[in-house]
């Protein structure tokens, strides 16, 4: 794939959220001592009446967000995935999901992307924790433009939502101004032989892998799922019938994550053969982001090798 501009996904969300907050004074933004990490500092400076700092207290952040939401606010609560939803899961379950309040859990530094900080900060279990919760929408944008479009769309939606974003600069896939709607998957590459499903920032790596596979006479389609829940099951079924072989790629444990969601859907109908690429029951460690992805089979070269092997099975 031709290399395009590199931008931060989280900054796309923050820029979109600033616009949404300017347009609607009932949009509130909360941070647990991570406003600069999330790019919320501009919102804090410009709209202090809509900004709430809770300190390093992710459990209380969700409780406060739920209370604000009960009074008519749409509350965007920001932290890292490791701490929200991984630390404050029960507060999210009880005060947001069961309580059906429009709280948006906005998290950065997902997957291995907080690379040098080590395993303590690398959230590889958050999709599993989030997608098991009734009422909760689970999203993971692929690039700056998609994240930017997501924020105002969530400001107008009443459902509890979790947004998972990787830290770091990723290639633009979508044009600025692209629309976002909860639910539909996006076809980002055509192919004849096999289809690769992915989510979040891994989309750009998967597009690169598909280019390389083309040289080995494997023509791979790529479908990006910005919405992990509710899953676009129609697309999953259609692709399964069309290709008969599906590969999922995610920066997450293969247990309970995005690939598991796909597996649940196709296994019920025995629609296709499936290869899940992800982290295999292990923690991360300190290192560069690229090194960690490579070690866990999530760099372009490793993904290509795993897909080639699968195509021979």
């Amino acid at each position: 794939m031709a290399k395009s501009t590199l931008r931060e996904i989280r900054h796309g969300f923050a820029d979109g959220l600033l616009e949404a907050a300017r347009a609607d004074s009932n949009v509130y933004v909360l941070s647990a001592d991570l406003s600069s990490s999330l790019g919320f500092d501009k919102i804090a400076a410009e709209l202090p009446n809509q900004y709430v700092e809770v300190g390093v207290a992710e459990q209380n952040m969700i409780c406060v967000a739920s209370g604000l939401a009960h009074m008519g606010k749409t509350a965007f609560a920001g932290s890292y995935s490791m701490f929200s939803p991984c630390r404050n899961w029960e507060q999210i379950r009880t005060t947001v999901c069961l309580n059906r309040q429009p709280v948006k859990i906005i998290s950065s530094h997902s997957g291995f992307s907080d690379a040098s900080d080590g395993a303590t900060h690398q959230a590889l279990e958050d999709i599993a924790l989030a997608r098991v919760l009734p009422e909760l929408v689970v999203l993971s944008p692929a690039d700056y433009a998609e994240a930017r479009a997501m924020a105002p769309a969530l400001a107008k939606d009443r459902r509890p939502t979790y947004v998972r974003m990787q830290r770091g600069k990723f290639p633009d896939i979508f044009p600025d101004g692209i629309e976002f709607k909860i639910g539909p998957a996006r076809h980002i590459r055509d192919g004849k032989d096999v289809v690769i499903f992915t989510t979040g920032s891994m989309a750009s790596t998967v597009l690169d892998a598909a280019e390389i596979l083309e040289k080995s006479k494997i023509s791979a389609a790529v479908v990006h799922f910005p919405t992990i829940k509710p899953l676009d099951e129609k697309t999953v079924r259609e692709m399964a019938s069309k290709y008969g072989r599906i590969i999922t790629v995610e920066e997450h444990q293969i247990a309970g994550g995005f690939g598991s969601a796909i597996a649940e859907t196709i296994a019920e109908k025995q629609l296709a053969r499936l290869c899940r690429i992800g982290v295999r029951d292990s923690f991360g460690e300190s290192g560069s982001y690229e090194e960690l992805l490579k070690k866990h089979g999530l760099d372009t070269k490793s993904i290509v090798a795993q897909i080639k092997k699968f195509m021979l099975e």
Partner: protein
Amino acid sequence: MSEITRLEKHAASVRRGVLSMLATAGSGHTAGSLGLVEVVTAMYGAVLKFNPKNPHDSRRDLFMLSNGHVAPVLYATLAEFGLILKSELRTLRKLGTRLQGHPERTKLAWLETTSGPLGEGIGQAAGMALAIKRDGQALKRFVYVVTGDGELDEGNAWESIMFAADQRLGNLIMIVDRNGIQLSGDTENVMPLENLSEKIASFGWNVQEINGNSFEDILNAVKIAHDITDRPTAIIAHTTAGKGVEEIEGDWHWHGKAPSKEQEAKWLKVL
């Protein structure tokens, strides 16, 4: 009839309702529910601004239990003041009921939130009080949250106590049900809380200690709290767990169990 006499009559009726609904359900939390009868009766009988015809009236005060396990006293009080039917109390904990074992907002419009897992109500109440304050209504609408004392073992509660002080939520009033018991024993044996008053005050709250089974004390404490606008107020309400049924008063074994039908019949005579 004086206001206190009126409230005492309501309280006697609420207490009977609590006992009967728990005995009918066959499970639930008796001690805390009986001990909080005066507090919750005072709220709906004298303190809260609300519109009996519209639970979502935008001018209402907000009241919630962080210690959701004492839901029976809230349900019985709602029935006492005509917000739900008294006959509905028999449905407590039964399939399809609006009166869930722990309160669920989406099931019953008079509830402000869903509670049960402990330590989460203060933060939610603080969020509500903050929204009211930022909307410029702080002197007109108050948010009341009841927390158990054993519940204050939860770290989440102290995160919220710190937050409410930082935001100077003068429209937030926390009532601590200081009955001295929790599920597995007396609070000071399970996890000592004292000096509770000094602890909360040191976080930046106004703190009052009262007899939580005295209507005079409760009404007076709320009045004082209303006049303090620059910080939240904690009312440490010393209540008697199981209040009204002498043989179980103060006994932690009654934290989490319900009376039998025989006990109900016997105790209703005492009440």
